[in-house]
């Protein structure tokens, strides 16, 4: 019987290994041919002229992800605090499933919502600075909403897992409910909160469809948050359909870069959490 479980476990390990092999085998030669410097730091992406610099896309992904976290994480933390410590039972039975439902909405639907609601909205509010509706800001706003269920889903249980003695200890010192929650319970849930943020980071960086639909997708350096941008994921999806030769390999190499980012984020989380437990 044990062998069945082992096989099941091997499946996931094998997939990760195969993905790695595929990515690196196809991506690295292209990086070598283009030159690592030219590829990572080149500011021009012109497949027609065989110029493959993905720096604008790296910047795009970083901007969009960073801004999405800046907007989404505070909301997610406060929502988790609300669910864990303030929410009356009745409200919980409505709010919690609603948040879980958010996680199940296909990203293309989020994209539609973005096109129909956020793009015109952002166009209007950024008119004075000559902003576009399809922009970094719009994509970040949409992503901020999309990462909420993921981040809340990790942080809420982390807050609930904090021993009640911390809460009672703070209360017994004369602290209010709010103060006890924010300055005694939350510090104790630090590593769980961090894990939630990192998971949200990975989700935001990897999201493709919804971002393509609202980000404008210009493969050039952005000049402001209300200008269009193309992300690493967007770059791959938009051009993969017709790319051949070096162009195709350059797109796979873009995947390698994305993969490396996610790997670094995960490793950073592991290190931070290991430090916590010492």
């Amino acid at each position, binding site marked *: 019987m044990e062998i069945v479980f082992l096989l099941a476990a091997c499946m996931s390990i094998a997939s990760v290994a195969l993905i790695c092999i595929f990515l690196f085998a196809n991506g690295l030669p292209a990086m070598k041919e283009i030159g690592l410097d030219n590829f990572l730091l080149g500011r021009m992406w012109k497949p027609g002229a065989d110029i493959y610099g993905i720096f604008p896309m790296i910047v795009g992904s970083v901007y969009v992800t960073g801004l999405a976290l800046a907007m989404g994480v505070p909301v997610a933390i406060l929502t988790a605090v609300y669910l864990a410590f303030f929410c009356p039972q009745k409200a919980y039975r409505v709010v919690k499933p609603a948040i879980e439902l958010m996680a199940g909405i296909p990203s293309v639907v989020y994209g539609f919502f973005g096109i129909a609601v956020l793009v015109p909205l952002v166009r209007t509010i950024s008119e004075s600075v000559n902003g576009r509706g399809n922009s970094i800001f719009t994509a970040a706003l949409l992503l901020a909403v999309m990462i909420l269920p993921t981040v809340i889903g990790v942080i809420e249980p982390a807050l609930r897992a904090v*021993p009640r*003695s*911390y809460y*009672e*200890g*703070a*209360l*017994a*010192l*004369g*602290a*209010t409910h709010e*103060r006890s929650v924010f*300055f*005694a319970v939350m*510090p*104790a849930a*630090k590593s769980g909160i961090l894990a939630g943020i990192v998971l949200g980071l990975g989700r935001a960086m990897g999201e493709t469809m919804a971002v393509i639909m609202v980000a404008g997708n210009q493969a050039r350096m952005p000049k402001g948050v209300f200008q269009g941008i193309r992300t690493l994921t967007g770059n791959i999806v938009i051009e993969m359909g017709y790319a051949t030769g070096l162009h195709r390999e350059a797109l796979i190499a873009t995947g390698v870069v994305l993969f490396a980012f996610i790997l670094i984020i995960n490793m950073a989380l592991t290190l931070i959490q290991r430090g916590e437990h010492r």
Partner: protein
Amino acid sequence: MNSSNAFEVRGMNLHYGSFHALKNIHLDIPKNQITALIGPSGCGKSTFLRSLNRMNDLVEGCRIDGDIRMDGEDIYGKIDVNHLRKRVGMVFQKPNPFPMSIYDNVAYGPRTHGVKNKPQLDALVEKSLKDAAIWDEVKDRLKKSALGLSGGQQQRLCIARALAAQPEVILMDEPTSALDPISTSHIEELALTLKDQYTIIIVTHNMQQAARISDRTVFFLLGEVIESGETEQIFSSPRDKRTEDYITGRFG
């Protein structure tokens, strides 16, 4: 109200839902003395202790009637609960330092009550740690995590944390039950020195402990106060048969 009493309890009843946990309690708790609450598990002594700083408010379905007065003021009347808890500090059964530095632990109370001035805060932290007899052990590592301390040290830190909020009364809920004998004797000595400045009410399962440190003893059984009086009298010539049975170890 007799001004030498910290608490006066009259006709107090406490229910958890339909369970009658404390029955018609009448009790005076004098200031600047150590009052020990003893009795078998489930007799209501901890519940009584926690009703003095209204920690039972957290328990769903808990209902209290009767009269509990602190300095003549009905603590279940129109008062600020957080202010009450500042005046009535508490030390828990299991040491519960916050997962932050030693300094921040002790400063938690004062900061909560609006002390922001750094020199003032430093002085208060130092004084509280000294009063809790732990200053010498931690003075070089104030910025280190409190979780790195031993169990006994953690409990003294929790006492320091309670002192720093500048309470009038300190409630101790079996403060030594999780500690080794040496740490226990530290805490007991500490309680004896603290009673000059504070009123101390301690719940304990340890008869010797009650006899060693308390001035007065209250014996609880099945939610009732069976007997209360000078510790010496309770232990040498208890008036009630049940008290005698308990302190001589015949049950409980």
